[in-house]
């Protein structure tokens, strides 16, 4: 027993390691976390999968063995105790018991006592002794059965658990019959040693199915690789649906599955969801995950660095689109598309969770392999009272996204901003605007108009070529410190003035166009200038506008074959029964010893576990017996 307890303590300690160290992560992330030396060390100890490490399983086997031994050794004694009435007890020892009393016992009264005891649930046995009679009674022997139930339950549960572990594979791996595949190969290229037959005893495998796709195998992630699990049926995903609450949070994930038996051709169609799995031929299919299944995207490619119109690009999630831009190759790698995005948005001073519509994630990779990650939303979002198209960018996964905010025009579209960008990048248009400003100001000014024009051109050129930071840099280099603030303010005013005139001229030329019928047009222009200034920190020249999409989803299923489950449940039942017996059944033994020639008898009662109310039980019973005598 001491051995069993120390094994149990060891299991507890090992389990703690498993909760502190995140299990079954990718090996790369462990290397990053611990460094190569500790990574190897922990790997040898099997700490990345403690609960399936050989030493852990060996402890469990020892636990089963020692518990079995414990039962084997103690069972005969316990069984004897349960059956036995203890008839050898002496009157002397009865008198010495804590709960003992002398009662009146006329002739034949013993029969009445016997009846009272039987009515109170006792089992009774009369033994004739030399010139005396001993009545032995007992009750609650099932308490001792609790010992059996609890200990057997531990064995049954452990065996059930081992059945569902990966012992068989471990043996196969050890003898070189099977091996883990670590490379990402197409199914047909995966060597047979990494395949597990459909007759495999137990497993927990994963399957990712696109809408409309059919598959006949699942995958088991193992260490730094995987195994292929052949299935006795094929699974087709007819449809995947996410339902939402009115507040936008997900309410259910549902996969419409069609299962077809490989042997009989029998089909089963069922919608499964979280908490509502489907079991077919001992294999249970669970809704466990979901992701994009290669949604089709229609995109407008906008160059933010020059006067241009958009180019159309068609792609899909998980697809890579190469383009050549100013003689260099760029790769657009599309990674994800999400139809619903619930964000906390401020509305009327309160934070509200709201669906802000679709977004997509992509990386732009240059020739040297460096990539910038972007996340763009299809529709503008309200931020501080105005609508913006948001585009997040980051250089590494560890960073948070930084956002480029592009102001939306009166039609909530990008067009207003893009036209403005082209106006600013057109020297013809900026010259027109500058001329207009000079005309407006020359009437009440003494300045030399030509010099003024040159300075306006210089400022706007600076802004176009490097944004506000270029303007600031030039001021820092060329202007004495005490005048810098004043000049900076003037330059900002000039840039804004030109921008404003560009828009005014555009409105004059296109009177039917209502793009700039915005309540606060000044703010729009201000924002547009900020965006153009920020484009130098955007990583690449292109902004990708999501025009249209076809949403294709993929559902993540888990397939479990767990023949041990029945045994674990059975063991659990025994466990509960056993604990009930051990704690709530009180074993009571009672004796009445009467000498044949006496009208008195000695009564004694004992229990192996004395609770507070045992005294009351004793007194109650004594009273009942006295009444009957």
């Amino acid at each position: 027993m001491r051995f069993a307890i120390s094994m149990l303590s060891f299991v507890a300690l090992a389990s703690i390691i498993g909760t502190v160290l995140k299990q079954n992560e990718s090996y790369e992330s462990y290397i990053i976390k611990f460094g190569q030396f500790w990574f190897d060390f922990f790997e040898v100890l099997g700490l990345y999968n403690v609960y399936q490490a050989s030493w852990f399983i060996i402890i469990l086997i020892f636990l089963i063995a020692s518990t079995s031994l414990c039962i084997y050794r103690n069972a005969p004694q316990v069984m004897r105790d349960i059956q036995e009435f203890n008839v050898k007890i002496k009157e002397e020892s009865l008198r010495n018991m804590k709960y003992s009393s002398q009662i009146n016992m006329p002739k034949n009264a013993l029969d009445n006592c016997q009846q009272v005891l039987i009515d109170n649930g006792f089992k009774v046995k009369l033994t004739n002794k030399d010139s005396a009679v001993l009545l032995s009674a007992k009750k609650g022997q099932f308490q001792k059965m609790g010992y059996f139930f609890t200990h057997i339950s531990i064995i049954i549960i452990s065996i059930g658990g081992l059945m569902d572990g990966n012992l068989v594979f471990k043996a196969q791996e050890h003898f070189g019959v099977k091996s883990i595949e670590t490379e990402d190969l197409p199914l047909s290229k995966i060597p047979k040693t990494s395949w597990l037959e459909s007759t495999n005893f137990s497993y927990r495998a994963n399957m990712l199915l696109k809408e409309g796709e059919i598959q006949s195998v699942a995958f088991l992630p193992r260490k730094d690789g995987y195994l292929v699990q052949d299935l006795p049926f094929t699974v087709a995903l007819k449809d995947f649906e996410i339902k939402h609450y009115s507040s936008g949070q997900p309410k259910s994930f549902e996969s419409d599955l069609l299962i077809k038996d490989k042997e009989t051709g029998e089909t089963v169609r069922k919608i499964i969801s979280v908490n509502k799995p489907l079991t077919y031929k001992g294999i249970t299919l669970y809704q466990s995950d979901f992701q994009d299944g290669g949604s089709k995207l229609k995109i407008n490619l906008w160059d933010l660095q020059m006067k241009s119109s958009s180019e159309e690009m068609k792609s899909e999630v998980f697809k890579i689109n190469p383009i050549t831009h100013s003689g260099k190759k760029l790769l657009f790698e599309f990674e994800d598309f999400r139809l619903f995005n619930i964000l906390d948005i401020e509305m009327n001073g309160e934070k509200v969770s709201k669906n802000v519509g679709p977004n997509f994630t992509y990386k732009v990779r240059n020739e040297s392999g460096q990539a910038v990650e972007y996340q763009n939303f299809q529709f503008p979002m309200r931020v501080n009272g105005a609508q913006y198209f948001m585009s997040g960018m980051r250089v590494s996964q560890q960073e948070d996204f930084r956002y480029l905010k592009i102001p939306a025009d009166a039609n909530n579209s990008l067009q207003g901003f893009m036209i403005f960008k082209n106006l600013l990048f057109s020297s013809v248009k900026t010259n027109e605007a500058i001329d207009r400003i000079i005309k407006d100001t020359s009437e009440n000014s003494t300045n030399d108009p030509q010099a003024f024009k040159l300075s306006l051109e210089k400022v706007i050129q600076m802004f176009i070529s490097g944004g506000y930071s270029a303007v600031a840099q030039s001021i820092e280099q060329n202007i004495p410190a005490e005048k810098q603030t004043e000049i900076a303010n003037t330059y900002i005013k000039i840039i804004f003035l030109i921008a404003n005139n560009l828009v005014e001229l555009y409105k004059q030329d296109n009177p039917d166009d209502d793009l700039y019928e915005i309540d606060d047009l000044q703010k729009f222009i201000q924002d547009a200038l900020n965006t153009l200034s920020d484009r130098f920190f955007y990583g690449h020249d292109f902004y990708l506008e999501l025009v249209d999409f076809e949403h294709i989803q993929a559902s993540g299923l888990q397939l479990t074959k767990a023949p041990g489950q029945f045994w674990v449940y059975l063991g659990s039942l025994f466990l509960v029964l056993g604990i009930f017996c051990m704690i709530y059944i009180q074993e009571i033994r009672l004796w009445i010893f009467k000498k044949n020639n006496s009208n008195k008898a000695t009564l004694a009662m004992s229990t192996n576990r004395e609770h507070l109310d045992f005294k009351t039980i004793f007194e109650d019973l004594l009273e009942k017996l006295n009444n009957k005598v």
Partner: protein
Amino acid sequence: MMRKLNTDLLFFFFLLLTGAYALYSFHSYMDYYEMVILVGSILGFSWLGKFWQVFKKYFLSVFSISLLGVYLYQGNLANAETNFILKYFLSSQSSIMWMSAFFPLALFTYWFYLFNQQTFYGKLASNFTWIATIMGMVGLMVRWFESYLIGVDVGHIPVSNLYEVFVLFCLITALMYLYYEQKLNTMKMGGFVLIVINAAVAFLLWYTFSKGADEIQPLVPALQSYWMKIHVPANFIGYGAFAMAAMISIAYLIKDKGYMVDLLPAKHILDNMTYQAIAIGFIFFTIATILGAIWAAEAWGGYWSWDPKETWALIVWLNYAAWLHLRLIKGLRGSLLAWWSVIGLVITTFCFLGVNLFLSGLHSYGEL
């Protein structure tokens, strides 16, 4: 004897009628399992009412006050702000606040009683605890109703997040304590048990005011199961019992060291109370863990995933299994077991709260 039998029967018929009404009116919203749970609750509460006579009064108080709250809402959630009684007493927020006010009051009064030994103060403290327990339960009941006012598909039993289970923890621990207070006819333990309840209240208040945790959120798909109605309360009977056992053990240890000798109940009573609390807690914790495994098999695809919460539940289980082993098989008594039960509470608290704070896993419903 006759009278007692009659009230038990009356209570049973009352529950039967209420249950029948619920089944008749709302059966279209229930699945088969939920109907079984309803019938089970009728039987369970009837038994509890017979086993512990005062429970009937408690049940009826909570029942009638909660119904008043439900009635005052008139099907409109906005009434929580406009109706006087709802705003200050019966909306779930307010009644849980009343609970949070009465538990500290009860704690102070219990300690006052402990040193002053006048029965009046003990009774007063006991009544404060009862009021807190009634208000807290009313708060949960009304919250249950409020969740349905937000949206029929949002409605759910309020045991789905850390805020709700903390209220549940306070209530269950307090009710268990009140049972023993009556059974053992001593009010001297209140000052100890109420400490752990008030610690939970303090956390609850912090959690409400700094994190806005009291907001009702719709259930994530993994929690949409009838199992939640059984698994979570069973678990919290376990946690509550272990917490109570630890507090009584502290009293035991204080007495063992020779302090407050005249003020506290006899050592064997404390020892026995600790045992009974751990025994009942152990049964429920075992059942809760097994039910959790069955639920996990349905929701996560495996009855045991070595998820941190599962693993720590196993550790808690092993800990108390060892405790009971030593006491029942080896016959051990005294300060070692008392210390052990106090340490048990530390392990239990880690399982209950620490796992959510420091570890991540499948049980991430109650993250801070």
